[in-house]
């Protein structure tokens, strides 16, 4: 693997909040080990919203969990560095880690329904995190919790309620409020709104954006809805089968894809306006991580596959300023994928 691999970053060093370097995560299973995240590198700047998109199972959550070092037993970080504010969190001891969590980087999970402890009141769930990380008294904690609730438009009097007494959207906002409790510098959001209706989803994302502007934290945003991601993120990383296929500014990702997979993703979303035509999406099925081929991982589904793709691994390289792609097509100087003549594809 190339050591001097390009870092998918457009930031200068001082402005970087989080820098993931060659992250490899393995799942140790009884059927053998699988590398679910392979050589992933990206940076997130201060105040930036960085999106990770990709099919189910491509390793998005695994990356997110690794950034908080929350990965659970079968997952094992086998290589790489995760540098937060200049320190490699993979080298933290337990106490450092405890301090780092939530204070530096907080996390909002996919399902708010399940990420609040059903038997504790909100007050307790706010206070335990405040008490664990600050010197506040309980009284102060309750006050702070009240303020946080107001931030997400929930009345502070409801602090004594239990999670089940809130609606799905409110719960999601509650989790966000808890994530804001310690002014964390990075908030990781793993599909924070997938379970919600579009109207609620938009409200919440607007709220998050507004809070981001106010508090200036960075966001690692994960979803598989690319349309949404394009609206919400500054830059987007597209993952395929544990690897970053492409990193580019959000605006370009659909209009000017640098990787056949990105292009396929773009084509998988029928438009809301304009002419109706038959779309094909991406043929084939996602890669089985137990059967990783030599060469490019996307080869089996790629309409432009060439011999080299079956032989050589392709690293993430900068193909245009701020745009990175892991595709052999670029090596050969072919940049505009859309201009390529398409081969007929079977559904």
């Amino acid at each position: 693997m190339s050591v001097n691999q390009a870092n998918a970053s457009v930031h200068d060093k001082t402005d970087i909040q989080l820098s993931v370097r060659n992250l490899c995560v393995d799942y140790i299973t009884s059927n053998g080990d699988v590398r679910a995240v392979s050589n992933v590198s990206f940076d997130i700047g201060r105040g930036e919203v960085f999106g990770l998109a990709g099919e189910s199972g491509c390793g998005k959550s695994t990356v997110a969990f690794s950034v908080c070092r929350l990965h659970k037993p079968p997952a094992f970080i086998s290589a790489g560095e995760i540098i937060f504010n200049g320190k490699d969190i993979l080298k933290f001891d337990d106490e450092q880690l405890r301090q780092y969590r939530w204070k530096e980087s907080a996390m909002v999970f996919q399902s708010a329904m399940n990420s609040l402890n059903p038997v504790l009141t909100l007050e307790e769930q706010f206070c335990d995190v405040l008490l664990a990380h600050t010197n506040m008294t309980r009284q102060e904690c309750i006050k702070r919790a009240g303020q946080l609730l107001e931030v997400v438009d929930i009345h502070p009097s409801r602090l004594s309620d239990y999670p089940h007494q809130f609606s799905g959207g409110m719960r999601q906002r509650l989790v966000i409020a808890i994530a804001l409790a310690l002014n964390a510098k990075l908030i990781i959001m793993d599909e924070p709104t997938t379970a919600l209706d579009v109207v609620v989803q938009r409200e919440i994302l607007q709220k998050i954006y507004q809070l981001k502007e106010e508090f200036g934290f960075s966001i690692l945003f994960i979803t598989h809805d690319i349309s949404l991601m394009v609206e919400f993120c500054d830059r987007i990383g597209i993952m395929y089968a544990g690897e970053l296929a492409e990193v580019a500014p959000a605006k370009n990702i659909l209009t000017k894809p640098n990787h056949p997979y990105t292009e396929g993703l773009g084509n998988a979303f029928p438009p809301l306006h304009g002419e109706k035509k038959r779309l094909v999406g991406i043929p084939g099925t996602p890669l089985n991580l137990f059967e990783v081929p030599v060469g490019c991982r996307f080869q089996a589904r790629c309409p432009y596959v060439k011999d080299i793709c079956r032989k050589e691994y392709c690293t993430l390289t900068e193909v245009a300023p701020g745009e990175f792609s892991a595709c052999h097509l670029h090596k050969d100087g072919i940049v505009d994928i859309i201009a390529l003549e398409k081969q007929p594809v079977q559904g």
Partner: protein
Amino acid sequence: MSNNNPIIEVKNLVKDFPINANALKKNHMRALNDVSFNLYKGRALAIVGESGSGKSTSAKIIAKMYSRTAGMVKYHGRDIDEFNHKQSLMEYRESVQMIFQDPFGSLNPTHTIFHHLARPLLLHKKVTNKADLPGRIYELLERVGLTPAKETAEKFPHQLSGGQRQRVNIARNLAVEAEIILADEPTSMLDVSIRLGVLNLMEDMKNDGISMMYITHDIATARYLAEDIGVMYVGHLVEWGEVDEVLQKPAHPYTQLLMSAVPNPEKSIHDNLEGGRKGEIPLWTPESVGCPFSGRCLQVMDKCNQALPEPKEIAPNHFVRCFLHE
């Protein structure tokens, strides 16, 4: 709208569910209120709306999974209640089939794909000679793109991916040669990259003359697949009609809100929502009056809280239930 006769005609459908029932008191919620729509041969009707708005309920009533509280459902002009005897019920079941949301839950993990396809064939006597069975099954599997068919047939559901499982479900519907397919969010649990494959397959079936009801959260795919669309809100069909007409010129404030909320790469997260504001979704009961959206509507009027507006055809094949269009 096509001028041939509807295959399914739903008229003023009402469905109540008991809630918080105890021995002393029976409370009800109204899951469907005065809902009317038709299904036509070779056309798809998409039903969109937020969770709990009654989409699945209406499909399940048509499939005779639920009884109805009031209103009428006709199949080729006959009340579906007439299909209650063993024989006629089987006939009806043969015509009306469903595709479910959860590709994991809709196949029995303890049986092979072969079993899943053999049952409908045998049950509805599509195959009378057991020797023909494998051939017919392989044929179906090939038709839904599950090749090699023989190997797929021997697999268990957990050995297939989500998309493949939905294809098996579709094959199941093809097996009985159903006339109507009620697809309840068939792609919502599928990955973006395989979603289209399933949708295309459904489109092919529709083009082969099957009548389809497509329930979804995803307005973009609704537009992709369906000719007609209905928008539901809290048990009410608030706006319906030809799909592009409704989506390009949403007339009901709720439809407008929905359209402005749909993720769209051409928009920005900062764009404001239109037509309505955030708020609680009301619990509709048989006693509730007025328009269900009145609490969130930006253009709410007094009468909105007093009566439910009647449907109005504001353009050919474009109906809306809103006092703004009286």
